[in-house]
């Protein structure tokens, strides 16, 4: 086994920012807005680095698909302990239209090229909430998948994954190579220490285009319109239970 883990990291609008819809309803405002690494991707990086520290795998490669600024996200992964980075450059209209299907094609191509033993991704990105990339990547590679992982343990050439599902926790054992997606409770991502931030400067980040991997990023989806959710209306106070039932009937709720 190559002992190499590919980790996907996505640059998204920072979780603390107030989102604003563009005046032409074509999307959200991203210019000049603070961006950072998707929180679930941080958890994915942390898990990969932990595996390396336990000497269960040998190398962590951080991958990001996006414009020039995605390199900052890769650098953050390097500062957390990834060994090298791959920046698949996608910008302009292509980037605006980039979605899980194209990214999974890219990741699948890279996983094959790098002979990855594991591909670890965040379960979903906090901007589109798709929760698709991990699953699509596994399908394209015809690899097993362990999604919503809250615990991962490598056992020889298999991986035991405890998954967070609606009913509780499900434990599965799958063969490697495999795709895993990180859920919230998998780990607590480390702070990038200053020594590691400075070391990250020297780590290699390779630049490439989707075409270099034989991937066509043309989209098959068209975003028609983006709107803010309706403003929350004020509630109504009633005096008695009878009033409540009456009001509910009135508004057709029951």
């Amino acid at each position: 086994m190559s002992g190499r883990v590919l980790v996907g990291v996505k640059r998204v609008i920072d979780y603390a920012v107030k989102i604003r819809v563009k005046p032409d309803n074509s999307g959200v405002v991203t210019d000049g807005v603070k961006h950072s690494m998707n929180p679930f991707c941080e958890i994915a990086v942390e898990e990969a680095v932990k595996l390396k520290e336990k000497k269960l795998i040998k190398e962590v490669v951080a991958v990001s698909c996006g414009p020039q600024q995605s390199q900052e996200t890769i650098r953050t992964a390097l500062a957390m302990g990834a060994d090298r980075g791959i920046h698949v450059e996608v910008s302009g209209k292509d980037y605006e239209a980039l979605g899980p299907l194209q990214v999974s094609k890219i990741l699948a191509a890279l996983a094959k090229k790098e002979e990855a033993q594991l591909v670890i991704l965040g379960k979903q990105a906090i901007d589109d909430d798709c929760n698709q990339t991990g699953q699509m990547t596994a399908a394209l590679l015809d690899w097993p998948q362990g999604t919503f992982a809250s615990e991962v343990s490598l056992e020889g050439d298999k991986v035991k994954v405890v998954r967070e599902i609606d009913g509780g926790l499900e434990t599965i054992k799958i063969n490697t190579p495999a795709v895993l997606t990180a859920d919230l409770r998998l780990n607590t991502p480390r702070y990038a220490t200053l020594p590691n931030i400075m070391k990250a400067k020297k780590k290699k980040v390779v630049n490439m285009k989707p075409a270099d991997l034989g991937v066509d990023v043309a989209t098959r989806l068209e975003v028609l319109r983006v709107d803010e959710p309706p403003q929350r209306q004020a509630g109504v106070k009633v005096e008695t239970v009878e009033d409540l039932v009456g009001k509910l009937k009135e508004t057709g709720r029951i």
Partner: protein
Amino acid sequence: MALRGGASRLNSLFTSRRFYKFTPRIGVRGLSENVTSKPAAASGPETAADHLIYTQEHFALKESLRKIIDQEINPHVDEWEAQGTFPAHRIFKLLGSAGFLGVNKPVEYGGMGLDFSYSVAVAEELGNVRCGGVPMAIGVQCDMATPALARFGSAELKDEFLLPTIMGDKVACLGVSEVGAGSDVSSIMTKAVRKGDEYVINGGKMWTTNGTQADWMCLLANTSDGPPHKNKSLICLPMNLPGVHVARKIDKLGMWSSDTAEVFFDDVRVPCENVIGQEGMGFTYQMLQFQEERLWAVANVLTTMDNIIQETIQYTRQRKIFKQPVLYHQAVHFRLAELQTEVELLRSLLYRATALYIKGNDVTKLASMAKLKAGRLARELSDSCLQYWGGMGFTSDVQVSRFYRDSRLLSIGAGADEVMLGIISKYMDMVPKK
């Protein structure tokens, strides 16, 4: 699970047992009501490419430190302010392990060996702590008690005191001011009399930040009889030596989370090797330490001032008087615009002084000017902003009243305004020669 809209991603984060501990002001990632999508206090370019002194590494440093502040410090600030102290050993160990306490100190002793611009970046980011006390204590630990030791101390001394301080294992404090001598450093009375290969120390120190928790003190004492600028030495003093009495924790107007002590020395014996550098050079060394201390203090308060302005804008935008938001009254937003202008001017001065300093220049005049302006601007700003918070500003529930109290110290400590004016006047050659 069908959860609604933007709340769903944050809800999943909220339900985690130990994920990001949100401070109240971050809250759920909601939608704005026709306000800018720029997050609070994003002044200056986001990209490293255009910044005057910061590179990508500086920004990465700030991001990482910000995480520590958001997760380990801010959630406890209210508690620490109420208690009148904070767990220095724990917090310094955390920061030390992440490499933030010895940013411009030598690599051989656990430091990062980076230039002072990185220390300034750390100081700036610490301005995001929700009080003044904790950053002040951190400042003492990383940039006030240690510069002379790092530059002039012997290898053994650095091993014993500098290394553990940078790693966060030992808490440091600075013993310069006394009950009878603050601004007039040369008139301190604490004496260290040589007896064989030891110094016997008698006297006391005042306003000692971290004093009740410190493992060692960088002490300025008279080590001989001679001219007052040439008879003092800096001594590394372990605080657990017999004769060291931490007399009391001082009850202050602000900076409540920082424990400030009055310390007495009663025939305290310390080996002669504990003198930093040359005997008699203490005063000069201490003066050198002050440049960095002053620039650090300026960097720290700038971020806090940005934050206070932003919080005031947010509050006055939703608070209505005479049927419209307070913010829409011209007097209010004009004043805030004025204050922000002054903050940017001070920031420019800070970066200019820092850029010159890291090239090896003496920036005493600029650093003193920056410190002078910072103290005065912080008072003006906190006063004006508090006014716009109205009755709420007068309560303990809001940040602005805490800032009002904490920031008052800036014109007094680390060199009073009047001392700064004296230094600037001297450098401008306006002071009569003796």
